């Protein structure tokens, strides 16, 4: 394009990089999916019971909460921020749900769901408000609220525990029931993933989140309401953490103040393994959700494979490094391809 008109137009050469670019965009999610398939296949070969209906169900149930948290985290990370308070918000929402049922035994389940989501959204609004108003990095703000929210949780719970007996059976059934063999909880995750995926891909404000993460200064120059968008990203992340808290209560039935403790790093790990760039601007919630499924699957596959479960954390660590390594090498290859692609008839 920068070729002078006197040389033959290099247009035909341009087709190749286009498809190459497309392939490399797809490959991130594909890579995780392949890793997942490979892991499942190897484990299945060792022990065929790994793919029993019950075990699949357990896998999906296990991945649900992590996947929902990962979707919220991905939205935040795409804007070049991070939300470390999700584990604490989950704990707070889970305990609030339990308390709500203890106080109002006849409470309809949707109200409990909405209450959890609303509580999470309020926590997220606190995060987003502090970040937008005080212009403090999200890492610091959410590190602070991680402790604040957990502290509130401890103060509120004062060492008590809410047991399954305190909650209505209908609510607990939500945690175990399935429709056509798919656990209801997993359906929640699917709805969240598809909804967030559609929003991020096809709506203007969704694309603006990518723009903000890709180049915040340019976004400001361009008139994108950066502060407002980032605020809502944190509210969304908080609300999803609230939802995850309610589902946590439904699934486990027993809630103490430690619910979701340390979960934030698992979530960030899932998102990064899922191909979302830690400095924002690229990646998808589908990848993040796949990352969550992959991490959960590793957790249950390693014992089957006869590998000491203590290795699980190391395996997750290796996976993160592999994901980052893959990302780097893809970026380098892409850059080289594109540089070759803009060749002006050389």
């Amino acid at each position, binding site marked *: *394009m*920068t070729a002078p008109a*006197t040389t033959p137009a290099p247009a035909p050469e341009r087709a190749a990089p286009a498809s190459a670019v497309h392939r490399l965009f797809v490959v991130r999610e594909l890579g995780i999916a392949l890793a997942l398939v490979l892991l499942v296949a190897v484990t299945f070969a060792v022990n065929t019971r790994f793919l029993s209906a019950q075990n699949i169900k357990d896998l999906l149930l296990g991945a649900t909460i992590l996947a929902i948290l990962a979707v919220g985290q991905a939205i935040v990370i795409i804007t070049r921020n991070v939300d470390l308070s999700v584990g604490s918000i989950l704990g707070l929402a889970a305990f609030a749900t339990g308390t709500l049922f203890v106080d109002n035994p006849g409470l309809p389940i949707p109200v409990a769901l909405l209450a959890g989501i609303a509580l999470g959204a309020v926590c997220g609004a606190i995060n987003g408000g502090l970040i937008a108003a005080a212009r403090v990095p999200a890492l610091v703000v959410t590190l602070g609220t991680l402790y604040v929210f957990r502290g509130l949780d401890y103060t509120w719970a004062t060492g008590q525990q809410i047991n399954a007996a305190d909650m209505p059976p209908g609510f607990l059934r939500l945690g175990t029931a399935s429709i056509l063999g798919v656990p209801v909880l997993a359906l929640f995750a699917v709805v969240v993933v598809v909804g967030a995926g559609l929003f991020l891909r096809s*709506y203007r404000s969704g694309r603006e989140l990518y723009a903000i993460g*890709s180049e915040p200064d340019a976004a400001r120059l361009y008139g994108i309401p950066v502060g407002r968008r980032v605020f809502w990203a944190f509210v969304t992340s908080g609300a999803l953490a609230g939802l995850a808290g309610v589902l946590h209560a439904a699934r486990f039935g027993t809630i103490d103040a430690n619910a979701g403790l340390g979960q934030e790093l698992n979530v960030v790990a899932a998102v990064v393994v899922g191909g979302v760039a830690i400095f924002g601007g690229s990646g998808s919630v589908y990848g993040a959700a796949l990352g969550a499924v992959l991490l959960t699957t590793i957790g249950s596959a390693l014992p089957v494979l006869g590998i000491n479960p203590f290795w699980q954390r190391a395996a997750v660590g290796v996976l993160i490094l592999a994901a980052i390594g893959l990302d780097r090498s893809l970026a380098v290859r892409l850059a080289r391809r594109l540089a070759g692609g*803009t060749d*002006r008839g050389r």
Partner: protein
Amino acid sequence: MLALRGVSKSFGAVAALRDVDLELVAGETHALVGENGAGKSTLVRILAGVHPPDTGTMLLDGEPVTFGGPADARAAGIAVIYQEPTLFPDLSVAENIFMGRQPLRAGRRIDTAAMRARACELFGRLGVHIDPDRPARGLSIADQQLVEIAKALSTNARLLVMDEPTAALSGVEVERLFAVARSLRDDGAAVLFISHRFDEVFDLCERITVMRDGRWVDTAPTSALTVDAVVRKMVGRDVATLFPKLDTTPGDVRLDVRGLTRHGFFRDVSFTVRGGEIVALAGLVGAGRSEVVRAVFGVDRTDAGEVFVEGRRLPPGDTPAAIAAGLALVPEDRRQQGLVMELSVERNATLPRRWALARAGLLFGGAERRSAATWTQRLQVKAARPTDPVGTLSGGNQQKVVLAKWLSTGPRVLIVDEPTRGIDVGTKAEVHRLLSELAADGVAVLMVSSELPEVLGMADRVLVMHEGRLVADIPRATADEESVMVAATGAAPGAARGAQP
């Protein structure tokens, strides 16, 4: 259509604009010229709604307006092409063009196909081929600028503001941009054009406004002005000689490049530069000039060829070794490659010498300050304080800091890539004087430049590249616009008009 009355703007203690008036008329192309730091970019940012003016009013169609942000200005029909491209590297080219204004289909969802089609249509109007699906990351500066232009066109603006849009473009692209600007003007839009290239200003614009030190100096029809008159108004004094190259006797060969090749970028490039010589590397944008100097400096890998500095072979791809051997590279893109924008002026100026300045491995402020002061004074860097972040300086002063940074290492061979890109006349002459003095001191200077007057005025020899090959080595005596352009365009004399700066 749009008028500024008595507009002032200060950043901290620095007054960037003082009581500026400007009148932009529909159907007219208006040029804004002035030295770096004259306040042009601040004015652009006020028009774009990025900064609100401190005092004064902005009138749109006679009505006072205030912009709460860039979105307001865009809604009012103002499109801005900034000096430095502001793209989102992770997003596709098409999305970069239509961000926030993407065509929608049912359910307010983005219509990707329509967006791509409209991007292609815009590029067609500009006569360029850029794949709308590729990410903006990795686009050359010229291509980034073209995307910016497409972005501005897509808004159907009533006022198009272009802040040095041509700095990175080749001649053909500049012609196309001008054709588009003229057709916009003929359709009744107002165009504000900012450039340091006077031939462009006089070629395109009907009226010229001159600014100096944040103040309005003069507005006059182009027909009533000459280049000399404009330059005098800009600098407030006569610029005696634009290109004061001193005559020197070339010494020994300092830099010897033999058969350098990087597949896909350049092949079999051989040349020498002697001490005291200024050798220009000319060619169209994309001919591979910057890539060659980057490879010589060891930033990029090479596939074949050798580089000798004063007879010693440089290990390929080893920048520290190149610096140790006495090479210095002042890169093309000073924001990204030349400076650490957040660090202070003095930190930047002493960056390559931080080991030499350290005592027992520790850097003490005093040594840094002294070294920085020497060089910033010699280059007349205008900064409020040496501790200010480099990012707050004007483009010309930033370039001086980059030069100071490398000159302080006492280089044997200095490579400068587009040393005066986006720099005003006064600073330009200073940079040229400096390069000339360095050559007189015996430094070998290799200068990549797209500006023909600069090439012809400064260089003892002109090397011309065309599509990755070195096609001509023209001595000063026979170098003129025609001979250089013929070589640069691959021997098509008709296109020689093309890449004049």
